């Protein structure tokens, strides 16, 4: 259990404020790790994807940002703000196996590999999210990066183009501002707006409210050969985009919303 992120535990030192923004777009696809042959999507944007999205805004290269978003170094709360609806989208795809990739400008300084466009396509169903939107609250221990992110959000700029899972699913980023992280409401039960990690057994069921759960990658790390997921987290969420009620979960309050950070 040690590999898993603690739920609603003490805040790290220095975590007094967070930046709050909403990412949304017409489409999203966050490939579920169980599927290679099949192309299913998570309903809630995984924490690792949020990290990648923010790293893209900050202009950090692949595999270069895992420490920035490590446990204790960062806080992320994710709140689905739309109804999480999916549909199947047939897409024509080309082989991306190594032997089928052709290099453009192979000897130049900048070289890029592409699938061979002259090959026949194969059609597959991708499960995609329709009009997904998530409100993200983020704190980074690295002050320099935190300040850089704030000024990028304020000016509406980004180094790489933000997208929701696949590069063609462009994302819109709406900045809400910087807010203090305050203690959440007290009480036996509390309604929480964000997704709640590792708390499925603390949900207070209500016949009128649907709740669901999914396990997604939360933290990553680098090794010699590439990257691995260092911790997975199970999130409880309301698929209809509202709050859920829990017992015994420590919460925080951001902009008058009740959230749990991971």
């Amino acid at each position, binding site marked *: *259990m040690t*590999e*898993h992120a603690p739920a609603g535990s003490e805040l790290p030192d220095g975590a007094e404020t967070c930046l709050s923004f909403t990412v949304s777009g017409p489409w999203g*696809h966050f*490939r579920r*790790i*169980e*599927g*290679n*042959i*099949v*192309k*299913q999507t998570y309903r809630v944007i995984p924490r690792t994807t949020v990290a990648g999205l923010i790293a893209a805004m900050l202009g950090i290269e692949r595999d270069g940002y895992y420490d920035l978003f490590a446990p204790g170094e960062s806080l992320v709360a994710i709140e689905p703000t739309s109804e999480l*609806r999916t*549909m*199947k989208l*047939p*897409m024509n*795809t*080309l*082989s*991306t*196996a*190594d032997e089928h*990739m052709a290099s453009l400008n192979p000897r130049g300084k900048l070289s890029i*590999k592409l*699938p061979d466009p002259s090959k026949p*396509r*194969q*059609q*597959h*169903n*991708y*499960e995609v999210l329709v009009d997904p939107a998530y409100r993200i609250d983020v704190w980074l221990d690295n002050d320099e990066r935190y300040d850089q992110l704030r000024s990028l959000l304020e000016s509406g700029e980004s180094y790489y183009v933000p997208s929701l899972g*696949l590069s063609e699913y462009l994302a819109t980023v709406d900045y809400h501002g910087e807010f203090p992280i305050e203690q959440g409401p007290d009480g036996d039960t509390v309604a929480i707006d964000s997704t709640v990690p*590792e708390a*499925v*057994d603390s949900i207070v*069921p209500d*016949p009128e409210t*649907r*709740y*669901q*759960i*999914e*396990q997604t990658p939360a933290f990553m790390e680098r*090794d010699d*050969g*590439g*990257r*691995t*997921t*260092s*911790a*997975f987290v*199970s999130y409880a969420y309301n*698929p209809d985009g509202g709050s859920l009620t829990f017992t015994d979960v420590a919460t925080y309050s951001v902009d008058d919303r009740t959230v749990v950070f991971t």
Partner: protein
Amino acid sequence: MLDPNEFYDEYPPERLEDELPERPISSLRGIQHLYGRLYTLATAGGGDYAAYLTPDQANDLIGAEESLIVVRVDLSGDRPALDADEPVKITQYADDLIQKVAHCKYNAARGIDHSVTHRSGRNSDPEKLARYACERLTKWATDDVVQDVADEHPDGEVIRGLATVGEEESNLDRIRSAVKAELGGSTTALLTVQVRREASVDYEWPGDVPVFNEAMRARKLSKLVSKGQATNSAGQATDLISGERTRTVGTAEDPLNYFLGKQMEKFPGLDPDEAWRSHPISEDGAVTLMNAEEFVDACSYRTFNADVYYLPYFLGRPTPAEAYNLYAALHSVTQADDMGPVQTLYDELGDHEANSEGRLRFYVAAVMKHQMSRFDVYGETLNGRIHYPTEVGERHEQITGSWVFDENDDRNRNRTPPMPSHEEWSLTTYQDFREMIGSGAYLYRTFPFTDEDTDATVDDERIDVHVSILAGDPVPRTQLVSAYVERLLDRDGDDVPELLIASQFAQLCALENADLVTTDAGDTESTLIDGPDYDTMEPEHARTDGGTAALDRTEKLESFIEQTDGLDDPERKGAFLLGTLVGQVGTYQQGYHDRSTTVIDQYPIKSMTKTKVKRITQEVIDKDVVYSREMAKKGSNINSTMYKEVTNAIVETMAGNDPSGWEISTDDLRFYYALGLTYGMNDRSTNKDDATTDDETTDESPDTNE
């Protein structure tokens, strides 16, 4: 496999508690892992090697004649040798030998099983069995993976001894002739070995000699890291099931086969050897997953040309009590031959739905297998619940049991109900719909058929909606109506499929009443989706004094429109009324004029469009007026328009809302027009009520004879 009572005795709550996962079930892999664990406990039992064994693969051989062939090797002398007196023993495989032979099956065309114990093909001849017997020494004992274990293990001598015996052709000849001499003919058998390590002790079975199990385990694990293009996919990572950091493997088999194999992709850089990075599972976890296969397969069925998996589980960390319930349900699905898995699971788990506070869920996936490597998942959810199909079923029964469908309802007295019903059209009658909804048959009856030969990746809406219903996800109303209309237009011939339309209407009402229908905010369609409530009748309409027949008809129409909330929308109501008039005038034409072509044929559903509504309405009203005059001439005591209640309502509805300005979609228009046709055609009181005369058509229309 243990039956549920034996399972409870073998694993009382305190013991079972230790075997259950610590982490809450929140993914498909978590469900499969739990299934694999329960299956292992129920078959191979506990123990370090249990998850690796496949005792069920030889269940059919228990008690069969000549079903166990044992090569006996004596390692107690100076040199390993075959037993001098009985080199091969042929006997009956029995319950008490299951643990001892420690069989681990490997599905490969020309391969040998992972364990030294090997299962022959069905009805192998003695020649073949003799070869398999020799291969225990020549092939299994010399296998690279097995040899590696022998090198490391303190008892490696045992395996090397087998190999040594197998090197001598004379030994193999002895085995071959012994097998052939003793066997009566072809048979299906397990082939294994026994070894004697010391002169003073008896021969031992492989299950009792740890090095055999160790080698079997190593062989099975070797397949988890090499498959297809992957040669060694393993590395240190976090196990996605237990969350522990451990050695993980990348090419573990998955009973649903979602992961193995590569097909064309949107994601670059997926390297088979690095598969453990994106899908890390510990070795024990991977083997346990594979053991889920029997339960997973038992919980699947075919519908809509796809394989549907319907896997029950309890959300969160399973308690022993929940695990017993789950095991009992899974066990009975594997035993039920004559019932589908949905019915069996509902019967087993139905009671737990109520007190599990929504924790009892189903993983549902419809998988289309085009080829070995081309899978498409058409619909999937982790959140199926018995609650939703039960709810829809109850709502459907309310609709078909109401006066709108039920001829025997008091409110209908001697007139026909608004909608037709027939026992062969189950969606129009009053019965238990839950299982039909769970299995998908519910939509099969109302949705368009898809042609499986055309582009196979096109979405099958039935699956989409089926999975939505099971998961309680609302379905857009436009999707339902357009599917219904597509099915109506798919038909050959121009006759109106009244019972199909009635079935669709009942289904739409049931789904609406179960809160499973939604409208798009930006839709130009009316957002009225409150389902009807046919149980109550407005007191002012509840007449007891009889009244005239015509008034009865008016009252029926008004009640139906008033109680069908979808008809509050004036455009839908207009389409419905037009359909009603066409249905009634057409039925009249058929009855009184013996016309082979009636207005019903003249204005079929597929020809109905917004631009035509006005013209068709005028034409049909004109016809109605002509027939009314005709009736009056013939001496009918009716001196006003026939079907006055309909024409009046049409005039009222269209006067303030000219059809040329309608915004209703063509699908919606056609659906309500079709509903009207059905209503009108089902009004069999027409002739009798309007034409109580002695006209000359009485002979052809006995109904008019009063």
